[in-house]
């Protein structure tokens, strides 16, 4: 009895639900939205398919065309990866150069200053600011400059130690100055 009553309720409930078809308000909104989506999609895919057509239009067999597209995509991906890898490596190397420069300048900044001065001088001496000096020449110039500086210091020490020589040199310099033309 209870089971039959339950079945009746079930059947009646199903009948009510089946009879109650949901009302759709403003179906034209759905139509417009569907057509709009299709048009937007076809515009997008149209541009893409034009691009594919321009690249692979010469292949008429479907699977060959698809394979070519696949291979091209893979190649482009590898190329991009490779470029990114190289770029990263170059970036690392350029960072290392900066570090080396800083270190050497910290160790012997005076030597670098001298180098720079000599380099600038050499540039000033050459016509139209052209720099015509090689690294080895610069080294040579620097060595001779250092050598000259040492000799100059030695000479000063000798002169300071001998008052007679000092007086003689001072007199000589005064005489030299008299005859030197003003520039």
């Amino acid at each position: 009895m209870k089971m039959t009553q339950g079945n009746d309720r079930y059947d009646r409930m199903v009948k009510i639900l089946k009879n109650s078809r949901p009302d759709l308000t403003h179906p034209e909104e759905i139509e417009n939205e569907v057509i709009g989506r299709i048009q937007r999609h076809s515009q997008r895919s149209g541009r893409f398919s034009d691009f594919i057509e321009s690249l692979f239009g010469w292949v008429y067999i479907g699977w060959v065309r698809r394979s070519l597209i696949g291979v091209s995509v893979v190649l482009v991906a590898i190329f991009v990866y490779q470029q990114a890898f190289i770029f990263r490596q170059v970036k690392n190397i350029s960072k290392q150069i900066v570090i080396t420069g800083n270190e050497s300048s910290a160790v012997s900044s005076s030597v670098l200053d001298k180098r720079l001065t000599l380099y600038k001088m050499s540039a000033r001496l050459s016509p139209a600011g052209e720099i015509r000096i090689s690294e080895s020449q610069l080294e040579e110039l620097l060595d001779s400059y250092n050598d000259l500086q040492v000799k100059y210091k030695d000479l000063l020490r000798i002169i300071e130690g001998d008052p007679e020589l000092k007086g003689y040199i001072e007199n000589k310099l005064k005489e030299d100055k008299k005859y030197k033309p003003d520039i």
Partner: protein
Amino acid sequence: MVEKELIEECRNGDLHNFRKVVEKSTPLIFTVAFRILGDEDAARDIVQDTMVAVWQKLSKIKTAESYKTWVYRIAVNKCYDQLRMQKRQKEERIDEREWAVISNHLSEEGITELENRENARIISLLTNQLSPKQKTVFVLSELEGLDSDEIVRITGMAKSVVKANLYYARRNIGSLLQKYL
């Protein structure tokens, strides 16, 4: 339903005629989606997604005669995916008033027609504890009135699975009605 000629014209890329196909297919898709999901907005979205998918796959349809089953399949699969995505709701606190509304409808003379909100709420109350498969089979069989062969073609389930799911759905809903009414 949608005429064979109309489908053929749409297959040639006639968007103007496809608007007519949308117009004719919308009530069918909306009803089944509404009954499965129990939500008007979600059902409207399903209609849109289904019709866009129909347009994109129109060239794949073998015969215009199978259009209805084919559209059903797309819509039901989309609903089924959505059901699976939603976590199975925990047993809702049963509101006596809602069951009283159902009781009133059952005791009324003749068959009453429910409004959308009431309709959705009752379907939700009755099918809340069903699995997505059971719910889909229940709606297709009991509310849409499709036979088991059609359900097999639409859902891709084996006939025995369809029958088993329908049995469990009926039993579950029957016991709920017995328990609360």
